[in-house]
């Protein structure tokens, strides 16, 4: 029964990683950059939801929508102000800028919200499911997180395969110049990608803090790094890869916490990443980089 409990907890944690990893992977696919500030957008989303619920006393679904709106705008603004001027710059300059944006967000949050952790009230009102005579407890948060992750995954897949904007995103991710020659506005497409990734980060932030209710300015950084790992693990640039990577990472982390050691669990997670990358450098579902003719 411990195995099942851990598996469910792992899948739930992994679903949060997967939702965050989708943001990393989509932005990487289109802008070919690692947006290290993505983790901190999660934190901003969680704070917005917290304020909406605790200070304004509004219901939780309003909080989620507020958080998504603020994060969407934040994502677009970050891209416009920090990354767009560097479109032609070396990837190292962009990477360092992203790290800078990450610290900026953390410190801005420190200034606004203070360093003391606040206790986040769960947005999930569904009671826990007790199975096998109470031996296996599945929390409402776990169920909602996993279901949200599945819905997001299906919606994103349909969006990129079927919608005009989604197809344009795939075209831009393959060849910006050629996409432009088709009449696709590359800047708008990149903004849209940041918007979607950041809205997902808001959802991830709310779900994460509902399950682990301690919120402070650095809350987003570790899950952000883990989700980045998950994206690389699954094959960065690949949407199903982010999903698989996130879920696997969550399960591995939870199992190593329970069966091996709480302290070592992060080390184990990253060791597995290193091994996967040694065996398959493009990640589990990563695409081979096609040669340009």
């Amino acid at each position, binding site marked *: 029964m411990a195995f099942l409990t851990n598996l469910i907890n792992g899948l739930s944690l992994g679903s949060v990683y997967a939702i965050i990893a989708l943001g990393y992977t989509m932005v990487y696919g289109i802008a070919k950059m690692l947006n290290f500030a993505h983790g901190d957008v999660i934190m901003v989303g969680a704070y917005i939801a917290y304020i909406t619920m605790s200070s304004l006393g509004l219901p939780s679904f309003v909080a989620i929508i507020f958080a998504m709106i603020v994060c969407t705008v934040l994502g677009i603004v970050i891209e416009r102000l920090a990354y767009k001027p560097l479109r032609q710059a070396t990837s190292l300059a962009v990477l360092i800028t992203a790290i800078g944006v990450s610290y900026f967000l953390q410190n801005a949050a420190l200034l606004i919200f203070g360093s003391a952790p606040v206790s986040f009230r769960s947005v999930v009102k569904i009671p826990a499911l007790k199975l096998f005579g109470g031996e296996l407890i599945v929390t409402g948060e776990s169920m909602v997180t996993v279901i949200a992750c599945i819905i997001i995954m299906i919606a994103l897949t349909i969006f990129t395969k079927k919608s*005009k904007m989604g*197809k344009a995103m795939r075209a831009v991710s393959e060849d910006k110049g050629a996409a432009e*020659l*088709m*009449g696709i506005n590359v800047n708008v497409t990149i903004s849209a990608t940041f918007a979607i990734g950041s809205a997902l980060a808001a959802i991830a932030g709310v779900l994460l803090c509902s399950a682990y209710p301690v919120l402070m300015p650095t809350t987003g950084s570790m899950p952000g790094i883990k989700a980045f790992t998950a994206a690389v693990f699954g094959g960065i640039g690949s949407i199903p890869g982010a999903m698989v990577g996130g879920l696997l990472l969550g399960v591995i982390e939870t199992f190593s916490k329970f069966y091996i050691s709480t302290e070592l669990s992060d080390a184990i997670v990253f060791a597995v990443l290193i091994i996967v990358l040694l065996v398959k450098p493009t990640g589990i579902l990563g*695409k081979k980089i096609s040669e340009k*003719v």
Partner: protein
Amino acid sequence: MLKVDNINVYYGKIHALKDVSLEVKEGEIVALIGANGAGKSTTLKTISGLLRSETGGITLLDEDISHTDAYKLVSKGMAHVPEGRRIFLQMTVLENLEMGAYTNDKDVKEKLADVFKRFPRLEHRKNQIAGTLSGGEQQMLAMGRALMSNPKLLMLDEPSMGLAPILVQQIFDIIKELHAAGTTILLVEQNAEMALAIADRAYVLESGRIALSGTGKELAKSDAIKKAYLGG
């Protein structure tokens, strides 16, 4: 239709195009020939807005497009089939064609039917991933994709590159058909002989400068051209 007036383009410190001027009149096939690195592709990229000229101007249908964003030119009637085809290799043939109609997705069915009539092999492979096509099919897809925007001016960059002679002939036949159907064409080619044979007029680029211009027939007979580009 298209007027390029005295453009100068730099790649960093390299002066790639020097005082290039050229004109394409409605209904013409104009060829731009020259050796590797002469600036042919650079000229097309500058016209389609992917590169910027430091001087002069470019007008399309009497509208100044020197500073217009590349993505806006498609709806103004320009289509550019870039060097190396640049089709979306991970998307299907049909999706590639849909991208061609991105700015104007009215009558997509009719346009698709038209492209499939011209390139029947694309229809057989429409659900295939474009990366699995042969070189000739990829060139057809690149041209078909450009035609999906119903261009008034079609710019082709080395459509014969890397293709077997029989396919080159096919591609040139298609260019002639498109021209007969009323499309104005600016053709960049290394295969000078074939390009001059179908061109109304042609320009010869040499190290970033227009060295010669004239009708296709004149240039094909010119001794300088014969020596430099036609092998004797």
